[in-house]
């Protein structure tokens, strides 16, 4: 028999025992029968046979050891024993299991997200050789990742042979119509890519060919497209006949020439791409030669043996030349300092093994905080379990002492206790995996906004498995090892003496409790900060009413969407007619047109020249709107009058300004009736201020309103803001039909709710607040359970002492004080430690907060109150029990 048979024997020792038993019984019977044969009496024969065989137990044990892996067998015996012990206090075990599963599950889900978004390299050839270029401008100090095409071309030429550079536009949703699909418009996530982009990444085609450098030659001349594998499967069911099929995107036609290999979903984790087309097909051909148009990112693959440091000086040289040429075109009166700081711009070569990701930029910090909090939760759960194990070890002290005194080794006891812990952690890990499988994808759902859904590859892999195993092992060591070491180190002499001293171990229990309270405090503190911040954000006065307003894009069917014809006086009047037509739709209470809606992501920067003020101090934002816009969106007019149709002259010259504008440029004056001019357009035309409106946050809840002017709409291109009665989705189809029937080569485009745009702006804060709330509740529950357990245990253990005190005349209140005092001390130390720890963790959190500071009254009062309330709740029952101890009963029990 091999070790395999011994392994299987270890799992069924009972059967093995039976066989040994039977074999020996046969021997005894055969021996006795023979003796009877020779004339002995049967009873003597049986005795004689047994004597000759010797101690059957010893025989059996020796044989057993030969037949199975003894260590494994005893390990399994430990496991079975541990299982019985755990099942004995099933309520406690269930609570421990649930809290550990919750904590491990939360950690696992956090890890899955962190891994998918931040750590895992792209599924491409040698991702460690990928780099991304960025520029740095002293005046606007943050990495800028977008490039203009001429600069990119020069960089590409200069580093040829060392670095294979390629550009990729931001992925954007576009409406396309596939041939043979009945003319139905479909939204696809399209990305413009250099001809060598996909091949440089090391992607292979699953079908047909990829884009190649010959698709990168002349603007507008390469109408080819490559599908992603997932999109090919989803949209075409993997049909190979997709090759050669045409589709139209606006006025352009593209032919599908290939499909990328399975597994590659794009370069940006979190944003899957459906199809790639050459950059030469970019919708605005002029951008390909315009050095002022920044519209794509530049990535590259380092050739073998070339480092990022080696190519950086070359690229820096190219960039410096480019900046000098640009500066030559500056106005003569530009200040020396401005020119100098412009020329100091630098170009960086950053490693990009996991691709660029805007999702990552937005969520890296929140995710790390989330991971840290999940880790804290795990620590709380572990200290909870450590308490449980310590308390149990104390209760089993006599058992341990007895086992040691009859010869069990310390290692043997240690193993028994660790196996018990591992059993619990293992079961919790299984539950945790199930929890994370549900939780992680729903977290990704929370990262999505209405117009850019997030996709993350979260399928379980060896990385997650490794993490789970590590978490499980670490948890076991944390919560089981220390109590096990203590318990197995028990001195039998001390412990077997009735009511031996246990103060050493109680202090261990208390310090564990303090640690737990410290961790809980930190979690509550951080969660409180995030929740308070979110509350501030949801109470910000935006300056407009977000509910009940639908934004409907008005698109042109003209092949050139930038046709100047849409910014003509005639188009302006046509727009007003369109608004009037939409107002006729039943269910529409009011409607207006604007060039872009609030929070749409678009902004129009302007410079103004105010008489009597220095130039260069006039950076403001302009919002072109039709009459009725203020009423439709609920922006209050504070002074003067609003825009009227009569203001829409061929060269309109009236504006509304907001409060910030009025405060900044006309402090202490009434701006109505004053005049100023725009610096860059209609230079000479003075603009009359006809009214002052309330401040409106234009693009973010967090940013206070900039100086803003509302000007008459410039053309027919833009967005309709429609205030509706009742369910907007009932009214929207009617409005769309009205727009499509309007003529003038316009059609209805994207539809979004104004409230959704505002909510999307807070998606990160909402995610954090939601998770913070969840973690806070979990931490509170865990702390309460832990406290309750320790207190109850302490009361049970001190019942006799309490009985004696009461018999000697102690009052109930002093007994309660006695019980609560040591816990209160532990809690005090825990909270003090939590404050220190909380300050440390609050620093990375602070940049995410809005109008809340770590150390504010509520940021401290909230966690403190909650924790104390939970503690009081947890202490109530044990304290009550202590107060109700009957001296007579307590003393009789001994």
């Amino acid at each position, binding site marked *: *028999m091999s070790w395999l048979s*011994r392994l299987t024997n270890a799992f069924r020792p009972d059967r093995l025992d039976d*066989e*040994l038993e*039977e*074999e*020996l019984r*046969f*021997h005894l*019977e*055969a*021996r006795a029968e*023979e003796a009877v044969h020779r004339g002995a009496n049967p009873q003597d024969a049986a005795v004689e046979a047994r004597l*000759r*065989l*010797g*101690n059957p137990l*010893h*025989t059996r044990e*020796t*044989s057993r050891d*030969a*037949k199975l892996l003894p260590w494994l067998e005893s390990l399994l015996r430990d496991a079975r024993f541990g299982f019985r012990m755990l099942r004995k206090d099933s309520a406690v075990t269930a609570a421990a299991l649930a809290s550990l599963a919750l904590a491990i599950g939360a950690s696992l889900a956090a890890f899955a997200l962190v891994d998918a978004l931040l750590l895992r390299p792209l599924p491409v050839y040698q991702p460690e050789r990928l780099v991304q270029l960025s520029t740095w401008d002293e005046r606007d100090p943050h990495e800028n990742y977008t490039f203009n095409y001429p600069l990119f071309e020069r960089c590409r030429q200069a580093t040829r042979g060392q670095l294979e550079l390629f550009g990729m536009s931001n992925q954007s949703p576009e409406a396309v119509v596939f041939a043979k699909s009945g003319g139905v418009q479909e939204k696809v996530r399209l990305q413009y890519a250099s001809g060598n982009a996909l091949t440089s990444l090391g992607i292979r085609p699953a079908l047909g060919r990829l884009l190649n450098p010959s698709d990168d030659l002349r603007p507008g001349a390469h109408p080819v497209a490559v599908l992603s594998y997932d999109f090919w499967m989803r949209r075409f069911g993997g049909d190979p006949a997709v090759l050669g099929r045409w589709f139209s995107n606006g006025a352009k036609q593209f032919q599908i020439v290939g499909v990328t290999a399975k597994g590659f979903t794009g370069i940006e984790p979190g944003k899957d791409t459906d199809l790639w087309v050459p950059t030469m097909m970019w919708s605005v051909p002029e951008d390909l030669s315009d050095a002022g148009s920044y519209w794509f990112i530049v990535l590259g693959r380092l050739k073998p043996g070339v480092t990022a440091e080696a190519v950086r000086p070359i690229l820096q040289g190219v960039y410096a030349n480019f900046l000098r040429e640009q500066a030559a075109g500056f106005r003569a009166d530009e200040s020396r300092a401005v020119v100098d700081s412009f020329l100091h711009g630098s170009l960086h070569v950053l490693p990009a093994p996991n691709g660029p990701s805007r999702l990552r930029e937005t969520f890296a910090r929140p995710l790390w905080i989330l991971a840290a909090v999940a880790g804290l939760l795990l620590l709380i759960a572990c200290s909870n379990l450590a308490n449980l194990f310590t308390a149990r070890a104390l209760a089993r002290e006599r058992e341990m002492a007895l086992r040691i005194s009859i010869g069990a080794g310390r290692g043997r006891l240690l193993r028994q206790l660790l196996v018990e812990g591992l059993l619990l952690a293992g079961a919790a890990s299984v539950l945790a995996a199930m929890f994370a499988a549900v939780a992680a994808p729903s977290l990704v759902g929370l990262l999505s906004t209405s117009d850019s859904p997030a996709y993350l590859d979260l399928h379980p892999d060896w990385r997650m498995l490794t993490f789970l195993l590590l978490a499980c092992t670490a948890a076991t060591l944390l919560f089981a090892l220390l109590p096990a070491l203590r318990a197995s180190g028990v001195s039998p002499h001390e412990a077997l003496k009735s009511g031996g001293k246990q103060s050493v171990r109680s202090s261990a229990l208390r310090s564990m409790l303090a640690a737990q309270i410290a961790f809980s405090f930190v979690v509550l503190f951080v969660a409180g900060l995030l929740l308070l911040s979110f509350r501030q954000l949801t109470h910000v006065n935006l300056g407009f009413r977000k509910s009940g307003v639908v934004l409907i894009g008005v698109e042109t069917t003209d092949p050139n969407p930038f046709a100047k014809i849409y910014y003509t006086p005639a188009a302006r009047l046509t727009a007003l007619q369109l608004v009037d037509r939409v107002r006729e739709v039943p269910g529409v209470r009011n409607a207006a047109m604007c060039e872009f809606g609030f929070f749409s992501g678009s902004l129009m920067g302007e410079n103004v020249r105010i008489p009597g003020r220095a130039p260069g101090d006039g950076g403001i934002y302009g919002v072109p709107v039709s009459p009725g816009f203020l009423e439709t969106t609920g922006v209050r007019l504070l002074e003067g009058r609003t825009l009227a149709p009569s203001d829409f002259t061929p060269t309109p010259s009236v504006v509304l300004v907001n409060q910030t504008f009025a405060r900044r440029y006309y402090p202490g004056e009434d701006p109505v009736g004053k005049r100023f001019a725009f610096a860059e357009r209609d230079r000479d035309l003075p603009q009359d201020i006809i009214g002052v409106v309330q401040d409106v946050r234009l693009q973010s809840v967090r940013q206070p309103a900039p100086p803003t002017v509302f000007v008459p709409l410039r053309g027919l291109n833009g967005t309709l803001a429609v205030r509706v009665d009742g369910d907007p989705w009932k009214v929207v189809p009617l409005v769309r039909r009205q727009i499509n029937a309007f003529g003038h080569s316009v059609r209805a485009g994207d539809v979004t709710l104004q409230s959704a745009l505002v909510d999307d702006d807070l998606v990160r804060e909402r995610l954090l607040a939601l998770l913070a709330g969840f973690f806070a509740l979990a931490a509170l529950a865990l702390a309460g359970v832990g406290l309750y357990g320790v207190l109850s245990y302490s009361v049970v253990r001190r019942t006799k002492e309490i009985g004696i005190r009461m018999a000697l005349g102690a009052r109930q209140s002093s007994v309660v004080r006695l019980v609560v005092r040591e816990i209160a001390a532990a809690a005090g130390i825990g909270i003090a430690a939590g404050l220190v720890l909380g300050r440390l963790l609050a620093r990375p959190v602070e940049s995410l907060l809005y109008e809340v500071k770590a150390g504010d009254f509520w940021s401290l009062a909230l966690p403190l109150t909650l924790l104390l309330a939970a503690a009081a709740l947890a202490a109530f029952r044990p304290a009550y029990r202590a107060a109700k101890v009957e001296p007579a009963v307590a003393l009789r029990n001994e």
Partner: protein
Amino acid sequence: MARQDALQGSLPLLVLKILARRGPLHGYGIAVQIEAMSEDILRVEEGSLYPALHRMEEAGWIKAKWATTPSNRRARAYDITAAGRKQLEGELIRWRSITAAVDAVLEQA
């Protein structure tokens, strides 16, 4: 006592030899055979016979299966394996050289 001690190290050798010659035997049969063939001089310590058998089984020298005796009872019968035969050869050589050495000492003393 002396008789049993003499057997201590040589039990596997005897078991292998008997199994090699007599084919499948159960534990009791092996004990009886050893006693009978040594004309009752060698008496097997039964307490150590079975652990020895099980160790040899684990080592792969003998194999066991449950068989029915003529009296229609289940008994575990052992038989020698190829590896056991090889082991037997080795053990025999070792045994002979030891006894020869002991003889030599006894004659010269």
